[in-house]
């Protein structure tokens, strides 16, 4: 097991008030009874809507690279039985699959596809998911194939950044300088280990400078203090850098990277999925622990609506060489299966909508009594309403290549 992003559906669903009440457990319940207030009366309180700054995001005019990109609702699935044999990934076959997927998605050559998404001056960030190596993390072979495409089209290798939010797992997942010479490998933040202070001489988190205080996702009234599971607010700060109403975007995204390629893993998180939109939605900003309870998957839509993501995220590739249908987002061998497929889309919401349905079908096939409550996919419908993607199954075009 290793790092991932908090994702239990119920935590997403519970509002903050319930969160605190449940966190204190029997104490709160006993208190309610002593006051003569039936717990059921408290439970009846409606979940308040959280005000965010989504309206500000939507005011910013779109660019020609804005989501859902040039191919809304189009998803390409490339399957090759040679890609994963005896638990070993074949990098050569994966490279062929990447080329086939991109060409099929764009309908043109690799060179013209490059020109469709990038210029040679771009700084391209490859957002990987290093959680759960080697079973269910993004395979380095896919990053290698994308990098080769970029470099073959004269993008300087120094303009490529492999990144994730945390620095702990990139190495374990194989994203090392020795494997990717010349490529920057960077995390938005660090977490200081036990026994060491995460504060610098000025008392700030050592990673505070990595976040852009001018570019943020605001969830009004939702603060990272006393969040369930984080009884120790100092620990929350260590992991989340800030604890107020603001989740700041990493400077890597706001000031450095000009285009983003999303290399997600293919896995569940409870009854939902942790694939393309979550790989960016819960990783591009800090101070996310506070967001799970009141906003949940909605963050995956709203963070991607921020211009700093919306206008840079040009390509999504979901690594479905292996899939995990249960037990996610942590790795669990019992539920990992060879899927031997890669998925391509400019529209991450169409991609997630399709993969969600696929994974639900897989769970049923494996005998799981699946909870398909509509709220696990509401964020996808919300994205469609915002014009960020196409998620209606009738409108999604799945192309097999």
């Amino acid at each position, binding site marked *: *097991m*290793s*790092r*991932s*992003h*908090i*994702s*239990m*559906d*119920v*935590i997403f*669903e*519970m*509002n903050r008030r*319930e969160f605190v*009440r*449940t966190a204190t*457990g*029997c104490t709160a*319940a006993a208190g309610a009874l002593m006051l003569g207030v*039936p*717990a*059921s009366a408290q*439970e*009846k309180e409606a*979940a308040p809507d959280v005000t965010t700054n989504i309206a500000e995001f939507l005011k910013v005019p779109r660019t020609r690279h804005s989501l859902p990109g040039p191919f809304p609702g189009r998803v390409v699935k490339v399957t090759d039985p040679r890609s994963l044999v005896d*638990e070993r990934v074949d990098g050569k076959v994966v490279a062929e699959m990447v080329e086939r997927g991109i060409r099929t998605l764009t309908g043109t050559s690799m060179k013209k596809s490059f020109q469709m998404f990038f210029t040679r001056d771009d700084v391209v960030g490859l957002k990987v998911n290093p959680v759960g*190596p*080697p*079973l269910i993390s993004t395979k380095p072979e896919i990053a290698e194939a994308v990098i080769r495409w970029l470099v073959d089209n004269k993008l300087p290798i120094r303009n490529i950044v492999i990144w994730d939010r945390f620095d702990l797992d990139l190495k374990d997942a194989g994203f090392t300088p020795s494997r990717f010479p010349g490529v920057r490998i960077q995390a938005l933040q660090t*977490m200081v*280990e*036990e026994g060491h202070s995460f504060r610098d001489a000025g008392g700030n988190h050592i990673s505070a400078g990595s976040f852009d205080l001018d570019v943020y996702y605001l969830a009004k009234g939702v603060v990272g203090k006393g969040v*369930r*599971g*984080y*009884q*120790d607010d100092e*620990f929350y700060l*260590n*992991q989340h850098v800030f604890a107020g109403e603001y989740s700041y975007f990493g400077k890597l995204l706001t000031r450095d990277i000009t285009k983003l390629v999303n290399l997600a893993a293919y896995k569940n998180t*409870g009854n939902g999925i*942790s694939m393309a939109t979550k790989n960016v939605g819960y990783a591009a900003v800090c101070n996310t*622990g506070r967001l799970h309870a009141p906003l949940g998957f909605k963050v995956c839509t709203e963070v991607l609506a921020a211009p700093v993501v919306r206008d840079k995220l040009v390509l999504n590739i979901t690594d479905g060489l292996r899939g995990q249908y*249960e*037990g*996610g*987002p*942590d790795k*669990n*061998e*019992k*539920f990992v299966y060879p899927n031997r497929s890669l998925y391509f889309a400019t529209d991450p919401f169409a991609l997630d909508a399709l993969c969600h349905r696929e994974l639900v079908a897989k769970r049923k096939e494996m*005998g799981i*009594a699946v*909870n*398909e*409550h*509509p*709220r696990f996919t509401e964020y996808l419908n919300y994205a469609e309403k915002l014009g960020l993607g196409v998620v209606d199954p009738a409108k999604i075009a799945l192309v097999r290549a």
Partner: protein
Amino acid sequence: MVCGAALAAGDGPPLPPSGFLGTWNVEGKPRLFPGSELYAHIDGGAEIFFEFGFEEATVQRYRSPNGEVVVERYTMSDPLAALGIYLGKCGKETPDPGFAERHTAGRFQLMFVRDRYFVIVNDPAGTPALTSVLVEFARSIASCVPESRPVTVFDALPKQGQIEGSLRLIRGPVALEAIATLGRGDILQLRRRTAAVAADYSDAGGKYTVIIATYPDAQAAAAAFRNLADNLDPEIKPVASTETRLVFRDYDGTFGTASLAARRLELRLRLRQEPPLK
């Protein structure tokens, strides 16, 4: 195997020391994750540990010329908490004949439960030749843990038609959500103390799920029943109800029931036919 020379790491049972099986040496210090610091280790999956009752996790790496092994040892508050975690992760168990504890073994991971400890022994590379090494690590750790006492909590569930490998424990909303969305928060008012049990069933009418919660007293069970009836998820529509029984239609057109009897609240979910209110 008798608990022998071992590496002290955290509050749990000792882990194998350097030189284990001749070639396996400890690599680095053990990483300890007490209480809420579990988020630093399993950010995405820590909530279920907290809900069941978590005390501390210890992670220790080992290396030999043959590869790497990573041991994760989770000290839970009580044996049922450890079993609850195990049942949520083990899937269809594939035990190794060389290991007697309740466990499931694969090429990358062996996970077992004993007393209040849940342990995963990982081979990150999934080397087939190391599966016996994973078993030896597990046997060594298990030998230092008190024997598990018999678990009787599942006796509340009917046996007939029960689908093998579908048993679950529930102590709160996180575990319940994996099975069904019945309402907000701790809708069954388990409060992390009452352990509900669940299993899937199959009969001529199709597959369905049974959840049984046995509360400390009838008053608590009645309060939980009322809370459920009064706060059903908006996607669930009540069909009929009495003081002790509720019939409802779920989001997907299937039916469910909640029945109260003394200290016990029984739910049946995903029923194909509308059940009677009786």
